[in-house]
């Protein structure tokens, strides 16, 4: 029924955000192997998606005074959704979302600390026009398939993270444990692989990793910024001993260093954590849940294989993701639809599959919050409760109500797009299932869909009937339980 190789469709749901009508020519004749290369080796295609914001044949954004996604968080949310829908590099945006959840940092705390404008800039600033370092999301895009150790080091110096986990006030007098704990518990090795004494030591390692303000800083100045500074005078210089090896030789201690040389402490710890075998396994488990399945426990062989690729490649992520996407686990047909979609994935895919004519992405903002995934606002540093955790009566209602909002906005477009196939209700249903891709329906929902199409009286295919029923059908498909899986 589908117009694509089913495995390509699967790849594009998992390693992208689905397939729009405009994408079809690109992928129609692609083999799964070619599609993996297309997705993974994205650097050959330009990162030009932002330049297409505002084009009438694309999804729309709502501009208030001025569209300012570098400094306005709601505009940044619109830009990111726009990228998910229209990018030529879907896996880059997908991995950015993965890292956003892994290094979960929330706008609200940054905003309470530094004001709305600076908080948005710390998260979303795309370097170019304004002064100051790039925002955290751009870091995730830059390192989407890059080196994990390098990303971790950048994150430890990232202004948003320094505010979020209070590194900005980590000083030698009274070290601050927040980042020191989470870098082990959540970003790398995980609970059970470090001790309380490691937490104290890690806090001391990062003393002096602070922030400084730009000259003449004013929080409402778009060109003002905060940036990382290694504040040598605030670094605690004694030796720090850990329960795990710091260097390859099994030494567990970071030596005492002078204040001026002390920044190396953090580099040593980050390197040790990045190459720790438990970090490799933990990333492998998270990537299993992200790419392969979150309804089936990871196969230990997969974990060891993925962890080995990660460690052998020197913590590079690109070979890891290529290994996963070409692995027998990912390519097992029983893994199709074996993952609960994240709300942002759900919204982007629904828009790609149903249509975006004159649809402003700002209309997805409140629904995404009700679905439990306002971008740039994870509930806590552990990220979102993925998998079945996305689903409750309230969030499911929010999903199906978004389907209604979208279908309602596309009424005329849907009626005209499906007119040619709507001489019978069966024809309409199967044509829509070519573009809108829920998991297969059992007979009960199939009957419900057919009875809905016929509930208004005998099928005539009249304009009125088409106008009502195509939109209602799109709402039922996208709002179905079957559609909540990717």
């Amino acid at each position, binding site marked *: 029924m589908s117009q694509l190789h089913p495995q390509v469709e699967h790849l594009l749901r998992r390693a992208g955000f689905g397939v729009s009508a405009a994408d079809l020519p690109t992928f129609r004749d692609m083999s799964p192997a070619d599609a993996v290369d297309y997705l993974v080796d994205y650097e050959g295609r330009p990162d030009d998606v932002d330049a297409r914001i505002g084009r009438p044949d694309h999804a729309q954004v709502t501009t208030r005074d001025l569209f300012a996604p570098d400094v306005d968080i709601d505009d940044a949310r619109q830009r990111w959704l726009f990228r998910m829908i229209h990018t030529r590099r879907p896996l880059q945006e997908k991995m950015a979302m993965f890292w956003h959840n892994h290094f979960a940092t929330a706008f609200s705390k940054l905003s309470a600390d530094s004001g709305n404008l600076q908080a948005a800039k710390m998260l979303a600033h795309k370097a170019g026009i304004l002064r100051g370092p790039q925002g955290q999301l751009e870091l995730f895009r830059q390192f989407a398939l890059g080196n994990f150790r390098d990303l971790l080091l950048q994150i430890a110096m990232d202004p948003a993270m320094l505010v979020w986990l*209070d590194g900005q*006030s*980590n000083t030698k*007098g*009274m*070290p*601050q*444990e*927040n980042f020191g*704990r989470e870098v082990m*518990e959540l970003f790398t090795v995980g*609970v059970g692989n470090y001790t*309380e004494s490691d*937490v104290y030591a890690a806090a001391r390692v990062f003393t002096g990793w602070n922030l400084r303000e730009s000259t003449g800083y004013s929080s409402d100045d778009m060109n003002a910024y905060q940036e990382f500074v290694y504040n040598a005078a605030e670094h605690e210089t004694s030796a720090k001993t850990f329960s795990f090896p710091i260097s390859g030789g099994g030494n567990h201690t970071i030596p005492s260093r002078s204040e001026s040389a002390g920044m190396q402490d953090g580099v040593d710890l980050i390197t040790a954590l990045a190459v720790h075998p438990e970090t490799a396994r933990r990333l492998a488990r998270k990537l299993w849940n992200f790419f392969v399945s979150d*309804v089936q426990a990871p196969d230990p062989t997969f974990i060891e294989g993925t962890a080995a690729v990660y460690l052998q490649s020197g913590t590079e992520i690109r070979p890891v993701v290529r290994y996963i996407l070409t692995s027998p686990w990912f390519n097992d047909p029983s893994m199709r639809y*074996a993952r609960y979609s994240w709300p942002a994935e759900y919204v982007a895919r629904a828009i790609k599959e149903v249509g975006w004519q004159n649809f402003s992405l700002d209309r997805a903002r409140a629904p995404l919050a*009700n679905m*439990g995934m306002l971008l740039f606002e994870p*509930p*806590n*540093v*552990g990220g979102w*409760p993925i998998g*079945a*955790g996305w*689903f*409750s*009566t*309230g*969030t*499911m*209602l*929010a999903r*199906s*109500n978004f389907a*209604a*909002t979208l279908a*309602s906005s596309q009424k005329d477009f849907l009626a005209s797009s499906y007119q040619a196939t709507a001489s019978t209700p069966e024809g309409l249903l199967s044509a829509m299932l070519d573009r809108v891709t829920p*998991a297969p329906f*059992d007979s*009960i*929902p199939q*009957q*419900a*869909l057919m*009875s*809905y199409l016929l*509930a*208004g009286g005998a099928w005539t295919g009249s304009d009125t009937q088409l106008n*009502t*029923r195509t*939109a*209602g059908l799109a*709402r*039922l498909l996208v709002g*179905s*339980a*079957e559609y*909540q*899986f990717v």
Partner: protein
Amino acid sequence: MPVSRRLFIRNGVATLTVGLAAPRFLYDIAQAQGLSSRRLVVVYLGGGNDALNTLISYQDPSYYSRRPTIAVPAGQVLQVGTDAAGHALGLHPRLGGLWNIFNEGHLALVQRTGYQNSSRSHFEATDIWGTANPQSSTGSGWLGRYLDTLPRPLDALAAWNTSEETPRALLSAQSGVPAIPNATTYTYASPNRGAAAQQERNAAQMMAANPAMGRPHLAFVNGTSRGAIETLDRVAQASSYTPSVVYPNNGFGQALRTVAGAIVRGVGSRLYWVQTGGYDTHAQQGGGGGGGYSILMGTLGDGLWAFYSDIRNQGLANDTTVILFSEFGRRISENGSSGTDHGAAGLMVAFGGMVRGGLYGTAASLAPGSPTLENSSGDVHYETDFRSVYARVLDQWLGVNSVPVLNGDFRAGAPAIF
């Protein structure tokens, strides 16, 4: 206005969901299903509440020496008397509402609650408070297991979660809990109107009724969809409630307002879950006069006072108990950011018309070397097992045997809060 009635079949047993006109009737159904008139509201303070600044041992010199910038001055605390070990105690100055309830004799403060080898991880600790098993942070939750004891079929609104995600405490193999953070947006939207919209809703309901044999994850999502459709009309009842007091205009206050609406309109929920965040105060906690922690206490105290006043005005205080907990307390000494890092034992609070108010347990002595401390005197050691408080609530308030629900007997030494 016509009454909308839909009869539908679930698990082979007919259950009736009725619309606008018959709240008492609904309540009767709930009663007939074994739900008594008693409700429990569980409030979770997310992030690890700094219990030492909630209930303050204001004559302990180490409290001031170890917290030079964030200690609340003795002159500002709301005094609640002296505990069995002779510690003079006072509530945070922004908890005036809770102080009122304490002075009326209906607020219990259970000091140093926790468990051996307290987890300092937010996620593991929250899960442990949920499972009620310090050895396991996975599996079902204590409130979910309580719901499993109720007669089947379980009313779809037997419990009401006001947060978006389902906390582990509410997880259960047999009893789903609807998440209804905002009753006013809890409605069914359609691209069409009139008959077409109703036909679409019927189709959605039929699709969600698919048992999806052999597809358990699909069946689970269908269950959430079905739960939503089944509860829409009753939730609308609760959201149309006009309270007798003004609730603070913040998420916590509005969640409590929703709970009060559900209780007063008699939707029949026996259990409510409310959470409020921001308690991970690693920095800028502030002292008594202001700062981040004072804002948290203001949000908490003002919201709970509005709720208690409202429920009392409606004559329902004796049917309602509220309990508060957090995943851990915080370190005794402040850090360099005028905040506190993750610690161990905390404070549980219970209030309601039938709660026996007072101070339970003893405060820690904060001088280094005290046996009431742990982790090289960095943290407060627990005195009362949190599960004994759960046991008391289950046995004496909800009226079920706590032993199977908690997978153990924790009744001995439970604070006699009822």
